[in-house]
C-alpha cells in the first residue's frame, strides 16, 4: 500500500515538473518566475510582475496545449494498460480495437468530402463518431451467442483496421489540393499545434471521466490477468459484462482524445509496459501510474516537437515513434538476454 502511494507520488511530481518545463519552453523563452506568476495570477490578492505578452503565451497558448498533451497522453496510456490486461497480451494498444484506423478514416473523410468546412467541430466529431462506430462494429462482429472470444475480437479488429486503412489511403489519393493533403497527413501523424482552450474543454470531461471509470476495474483486470478468463469467472467476475464495459469506455476515452490530437502511436503500447517493468502488474497501481506516466511522456514529447527544430514543429507521432523504437529494441534485448540466461 505504502509502496503504491510512493510510486504514484513520484509520478505526480514528475508530471508537475514536466508541465512546468513545458510552460517555460518554446519559440519564446519565458522565465520561470513569470510562468509561476502567470499561473498564480487568478488567485485574488496576489500581485506579481507579468507582462501581457508573457501572460498570453503562458496562459492562452501553452497552458491549454500542455494540459491537453497531459490528458491525451494519460488517456492513451491508460487505455493501453486496460487493453493489455483485457487481452492478456502486453502487445495490445488502443489501435487493436480499431480506434486509430476509425479516427483516421473519419478525419480524412470529413476533410476530403468538404464536411469539415461547414463547422469547426466537424472534423473531430467525424473522427470520434467513426472511431467509436468501428469499435462497436468490431465488437458485434466478434460476439456470438452472448460471448466475445478475445481471439475473434482481435481478428475483427485486424480486418476492419485493414479495410479502413485502405479506404483512407484511397481518399488521400483522390485529394487534388496539396495543401489539404498536407494538413491531413499532419493530422494523421498526430499533433497538438493550434490546439487551445476550446479543444481542451471539448475532450477533458469525457477523457477524465472515462479514465476515472476505468480505474474502478483494476481488481477485475487483476483477476483476468492472473487467472485467465475461466479463472476470473470462477472467482465471480461477470466476464461478458466486463468486456463490454471495458471496450465501451476505452473506445470513448481514446476516441475523444484521438479526435483532437490525431493518431499518436506508441504511447498506449510503451508506457504501460515501462510502468509494469517498474511497478509490477497490479492494476491498482498500473492504471493510475500509466495515466500519470503517459501524461508526462506526451507533455515532454510535445515539448520536443515544439522546440527541437527552430524552423518547424515536428509531428508528435514522429517524436513518440522516435522514442518508442529504441525503447522497444531495448526491451527486446532485455528479453533476449533473459531467455539466453535461462
Amino acid at each position, binding site marked *: 500500500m505504502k509502496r503504491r502511494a510512493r510510486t504514484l507520488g513520484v509520478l505526480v511530481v514528475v508530471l508537475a515538473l514536466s508541465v512546468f518545463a513545458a510552460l517555460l519552453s518554446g519559440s519564446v523563452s519565458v522565465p520561470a518566475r513569470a510562468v509561476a506568476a502567470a499561473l498564480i495570477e487568478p488567485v485574488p490578492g496576489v500581485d506579481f510582475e507579468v507582462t501581457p505578452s508573457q501572460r498570453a503565451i503562458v496562459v492562452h497558448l501553452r497552458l491549454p496545449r500542455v494540459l491537453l498533451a497531459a490528458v491525451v497522453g494519460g488517456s492513451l496510456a491508460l487505455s493501453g494498460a486496460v487493453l493489455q490486461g483485457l487481452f*492478456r497480451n502486453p502487445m495490445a494498444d488502443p489501435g487493436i480495437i480499431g480506434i486509430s484506423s476509425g479516427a483516421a478514416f473519419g478525419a480524412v473523410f470529413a476533410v476530403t468530402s468538404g464536411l469539415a468546412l461547414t463547422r469547426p467541430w466537424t472534423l473531430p466529431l467525424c473522427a470520434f463518431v467513426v472511431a467509436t462506430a468501428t469499435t462497436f462494429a468490431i465488437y458485434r462482429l466478434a460476439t456470438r451467442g452472448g460471448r466475445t472470444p478475445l481471439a475473434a475480437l482481435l481478428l475483427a479488429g485486424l480486418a476492419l483496421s485493414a479495410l479502413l486503412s485502405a479506404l483512407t489511403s484511397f481518399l488521400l489519393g483522390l485529394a487534388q489540393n496539396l495543401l489539404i493533403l498536407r494538413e491531413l497527413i499532419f493530422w494523421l501523424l498526430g499533433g497538438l499545434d493550434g490546439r487551445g482552450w476550446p479543444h481542451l474543454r471539448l475532450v477533458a470531461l469525457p477523457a477524465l471521466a472515462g479514465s476515472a471509470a476505468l480505474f*474502478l476495474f483494476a*481488481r477485475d483486470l*487483476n*483477476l483476468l*490477468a*492472473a*487467472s*485467465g478468463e*475461466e*479463472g476470473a*469467472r*470462477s*472467482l*465471480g*467476475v*461477470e*466476464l461478458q459484462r466486463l468486456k463490454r464495459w471495458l471496450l465501451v469506455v476505452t473506445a470513448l476515452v481514446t476516441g475523444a482524445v484521438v479526435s483532437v490530437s490525431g493518431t499518436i502511436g506508441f504511447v498506449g503500447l510503451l508506457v504501460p509496459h515501462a510502468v*509494469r517493468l517498474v511497478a*509490477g*502488474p*497490479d492494476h491498482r497501481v498500473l492504471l493510475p501510474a500509466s495515466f500519470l506516466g503517459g501524461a508526462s511522456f506526451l507533455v515532454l514529447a510535445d515539448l520536443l516537437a515544439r522546440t527541437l527544430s527552430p524552423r518547424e514543429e515536428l509531428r508528435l507521432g514522429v517524436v513518440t515513434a522516435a522514442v518508442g523504437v529504441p525503447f522497444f529494441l531495448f526491451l527486446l534485448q532485455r528479453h533476449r538476454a533473459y531467455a539466453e540466461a535461462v
Partner: protein
Amino acid sequence: MGWAQWPAGRSVDLAIGAGEMVGLIGPNGAGKTTLLRLMARLLAPTGGALWLDGAALATLSQRAVARHVAVVAQAAPADFAFAAGDVVRMGRHPHRGRFEGESAEDEAIARAAMTMTDTATLAGRPITELSAGERQRVSLARALAQAPRLLLLDEPTANLDPRHQIKGLECIRRLVRETRMAAVAALHDLELASRYCARLVLMDFGAVVADGPPVEVLTPERLRTVYGVVAHVVPNAATGGLSITVLEAVEEEATTS
C-alpha cells in the same frame, strides 16, 4: 449434456452432499472436465438443470456461485508476474464488495490457505518463476482462500511430486471432514482416488457408468470395459485404498454400435 462428438441424449444424474469427497474418474474424453465446468457454472447444460444448495445454478450470479464453489483448473496461466501471495488473496474477491479493501480477516484466511498448501514460502515470488507444480499448489491455495462449500478440482495432482500429491489430497480430505466442505476431484491416478475418496464416480462417453465405494467401482471387469486394460485389483492394507496393477492393454475390437 449434449456434445457434438458423442451420441446425443446422454445425460448425467448426480447428487453431491456436504462432507463428501468424490473422485471423478474415467478415460480421456469421458467428460470429467465438462462435468466439473457445468458444476462451476462455467458451462451451461443443454438440457436439465443444476442446483446448488437448493437454488437453481442458472439463476445465481457469477459472484454468488463463486462464494460457494471454487475451482482448481488443470493448468494455471502465468502471463503476468503477479506475486503468489497476491494470487492467493484474489480468492477473497467474491466475498468483498467492489469498493471494499482487504480486511485483516481476508489476510488471515489467505495466509491459512497458503500454510495448508505448503506455499507460504512462495508468497513473495512471481508466479512466472514458479514450477508448474508450485503454481498448481498456489491455485489450490487460492481456491481454499475462497472458503468454498464445494471444491472442484481438475487433475490436482497432475504436476505434483509424490510428497505434495499426498499432502494436497490429505489437506482436502481433512477440510472435508472438519468443515463439511464437499470436494469433487477428477483424477487419473486410480490408486490415489481409491485411497482418498470414499465415493468414486466413473464416467465413460459422457455418462455415469458406476457410482459408489472404490471397491465396488474399480473392478477388473470395469477396468476392462471402460479403460480397455487388463488389471489386478487388490485392497491395500497400508493405504486403505486399492492397489491396481495394469497388466496389458486390451486389443481393439471392431464396434458397430
